[in-house]
């Protein structure tokens, strides 16, 4: 725990990649395999099922700090993180907590899950009393959830790769899917060769991710070297059929097989030793439904016949990365694509279908075709180099997202709230209004798009121009106008404005505009009508 906390402090302290990798390398070089396994588990963003509910930790911290609950809440809003708030509020100690990480987790923490209140309370309070601030913070994070300390999984892999000589891609693949953080697992992770036993049949591959393309499209060279296909807006998923079983993984490495029985059923017909990459989409009458329809299914534990009927799903498959039990990620995309068509040609099930390549022979023609994106309900094109391998993670050059320009409107800042994490104690979460009958009606909330310098300016404005405070929310004097971009727009009974927009974000502040110049709700309804007209027409 001491060394792990020290690692956390060092990672947290620097914003230089090399220093982070060096700190990780030094930690893993010295750590016992049992500790290293847990460190790897937490650093790569995994978390055990909730050990103690966050609300209890909060209550005990309030009790130990001897402060009223509202003051805890104010502190939390300023710090932007509960684990850290608790660490800061507890009475100071100068003790040193020496228990090794794996013993702390396995002996002290995991058994607390499901224990009685009193046992949990005493164990946590006792542990707090033996820790300094940083240790408490780490301890609270281990209990409450994702341990993000500004290290990506990529950095952890890179440090382990430097230490062991095992390539990053191999490490990334071995760390996919479900595993237990045991010394055996860690040993296997960093072993020179894969163990003799078969790899777990459910293990997915790391996803290949694309960058947005923002330059002149002709600069991509000869269009004959590329395949274009529509860019669907759904859930990225990997479909695995091995040993007679089907596994569906989301990009966040959640096993979602049971959420999508239609696709699982279709996948059962795939040959054993097949892994597909594609997008799960809500689909009816041969067109994609709005993403919000899919959200109705995601949040639901119990899939009723009604929801299955109302929101049917399909998989638009665009790649095959394992065929006949062989990893074919190194094969050219064109080759994998023809395998995909062969495999799906033999599958008589509408729930899995290959994406359709666009046949345009020039960038100009492709640009024109792209104009149909909005009416088709897609975000633009995916462009994939025909000779490219299936890579690990985000790479530039082989796969591009070539999106259509977003819709934009000018709206007025009306409410602001403090952000979390890096944005703690800064007003970064904004609500925007548009005009209706001389009043500003809330139209969207946006959290991103401004630079740090711009955020500071808006933060200053919010503090100096607060009209009223509702808990953490400030109502501000309507004065600042922003250009807001969004991807799609839909009618919504739940929203006061009657519309809901997808991915709203701030493009820029319109210092040239007065609040009277901001858009009106009717302008947004006109956009919506035009969009629907195009779809229906």
């Amino acid at each position: 725990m001491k060394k792990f906390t020290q690692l956390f402090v060092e990672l947290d302290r620097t914003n230089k990649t090399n220093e982070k990798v060096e700190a990780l390398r030094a930690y893993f070089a010295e750590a016992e395999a049992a500790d290293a396994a847990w460190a790897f588990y937490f650093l790569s963003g995994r978390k055990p099922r909730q050990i103690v509910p966050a609300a209890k930790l909060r209550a005990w911290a309030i009790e130990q700090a001897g402060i009223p609950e509202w003051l805890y809440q104010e502190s939390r809003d300023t710090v932007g993180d509960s684990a850290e708030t608790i660490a800061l509020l507890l009475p100071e100690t100068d003790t040193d907590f020496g228990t090794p990480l794996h013993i702390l987790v396995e002996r002290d923490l995991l058994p607390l899950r499901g224990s009685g209140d009193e046992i949990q309370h005493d164990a946590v309070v006792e542990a707090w009393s033996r820790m300094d601030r940083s240790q408490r913070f780490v301890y609270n994070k281990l209990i409450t959830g994702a341990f993000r300390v500004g290290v990506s999984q990529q950095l952890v892999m890179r440090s382990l790769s430097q230490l062991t000589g095992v390539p990053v891609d191999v490490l990334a693949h071995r760390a996919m899917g479900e595993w237990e953080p045991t010394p055996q697992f860690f040993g296997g992770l960093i072993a020179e060769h894969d163990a003799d036993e078969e790899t777990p049949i459910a293990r997915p591959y790391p996803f290949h991710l694309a960058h947005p393309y923002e330059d002149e499209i002709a600069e991509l060279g000869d269009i004959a070297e590329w395949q274009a296909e529509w860019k669907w807006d759904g859930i990225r998923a990997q479909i695995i059929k091995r040993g007679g079983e089907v596994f569906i993984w989301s990009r966040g490495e959640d096993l979602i097989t049971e959420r999508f029985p239609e696709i699982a059923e279709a996948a059962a017909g795939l040959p054993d030793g097949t892994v597909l990459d594609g997008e799960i989409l809500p689909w009816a009458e041969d067109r994609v439904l709005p993403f919000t329809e899919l959200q109705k299914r995601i949040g639901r534990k119990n899939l009723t016949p009604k929801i299955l009927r109302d929101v049917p799903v399909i998989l638009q498959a665009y790649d095959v990365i394992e065929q006949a039990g062989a990893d074919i990620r190194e094969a050219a995309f064109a080759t994998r694509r023809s395998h995909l068509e062969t495999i799906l040609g033999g599958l008589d099930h509408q729930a899995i279908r290959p994406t359709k390549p666009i046949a345009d022979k020039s960038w100009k023609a492709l640009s024109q075709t792209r104009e149909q994106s909005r009416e088709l309900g897609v975000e633009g094109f995916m462009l994939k180099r025909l000779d490219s391998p299936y890579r690990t993670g985000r790479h530039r050059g082989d796969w591009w997202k070539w999106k259509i320009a977003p819709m934009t409107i000018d709206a007025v800042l009306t409410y602001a709230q403090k952000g979390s994490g890096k944005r703690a104690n800064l007003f970064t979460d904004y609500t925007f209004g548009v005009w209706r009958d001389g009043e500003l009606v809330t139209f969207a909330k946006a959290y991103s798009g401004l630079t740090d310098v711009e955020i500071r300016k808006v933060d200053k404005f919010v503090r100096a121009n607060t009209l009223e405070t509702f808990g953490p929310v400030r109502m501000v004097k309507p004065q600042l106008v922003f250009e807001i971009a969004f991807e799609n727009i839909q009618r919504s009974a739940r929203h006061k404005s009657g519309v809901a927009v997808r991915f709203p974000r701030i493009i820029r502040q319109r210092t040239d505009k007065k609040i009277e110049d901001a858009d009106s709700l009717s302008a947004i309804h006109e956009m919506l009508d035009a969009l629907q007209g195009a779809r229906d027409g």
Partner: protein
Amino acid sequence: MKTAVSQKSLSAGEWPLRYNENMDRKSLVKLTSKGLYCAQGGFYIDPWKPVTRAVVTHAHADHAYRGNGSYLVAKKSEHLCRVRLGDEAKIETVPYGKTLTIDGVKVSMHPAGHVLGSAQVRVEYKGESWCVSGDYKLTPDPTCTPFEPVKAQNFITEATFGLPIYKWRSMDAVFGEVNDWWRQNRERGKASVIFAYSLGKSQRILKSIDPSIGPIFTHGAVERLNEAFRASGVELPATTYVGSVEDKKLFTGSLIVAPPSAQASTWLRRFGPQSTAFASGWMTVRGARRQRAVDRGFVLSDHADWPELMTAINSANAERVYVTHGFSDEVTRYLNEQGIAAEKLTTKFVGDDAPEADDGNIAI
């Protein structure tokens, strides 16, 4: 957004300056659009608009504005105020603890422990007493006279760090970290650049670090104030103005003290390989450290932390506490719940509500 708010219609109205109910026309000190005003004595305390007579608690930019007819400051603040207010300013001084009578009002200045020469201003007239404490801290600071509790019926307090998450560690612990950081950078052939408010914080760092580690260089804004500190009798280790250095190799392994505004500038390039740090009470919170994008954040403030605020307020033993800049809503509510009559006072003492509080203004 985590909390639903009721949608209200908004219109572009002016935000009125709020006046305090308990500071009625009869009150000895009241809030006006120019600042805190003592009508009986005909003077303002830390006014933010030009007035004839200003009593100033300390030399920081949001308390000592240029353009007033005359200034009364604590004796030890004289050199700093001269730098801040210019050669033309009419500055009178009074030693700590000495009582002046201005139009029947007893006026005295008492150490606030914030920066060199900082004072709490106590005024009394016909049995009514006020203490305007300005900015203050209780933590020891080798560059200024320690805070002294002042008894008054009405106590005006700051609340810059008015949340219980702000609890300063011992200065030995903090400067131990600063020294270790500098030493380690020096071993690695790097310069150590520390950003700190140029008036007060910079000199506190200079006075507290171990000067035997290596040479120390300063930004012009800091060096100018170093001179004023030395002229006031505060001994500081030898420092060299960065601009006077020809040979850039001299910066390797050195400590450079600069105001926060220098962080985003090309000015930093001359130092070659470097590690950066920011010294501020805001560095308590990880998010604030990450926003700064420096390698290290040292928790070092010239303001009172939560326990110090409570100590100062309790020892003032006031009938009523007025809470200004910072977490004033929170401190006001907490005091009232503790049975101490308190209310918020909306002043224009800037910066303290924002994370830039400690930066102050380097345009001196």
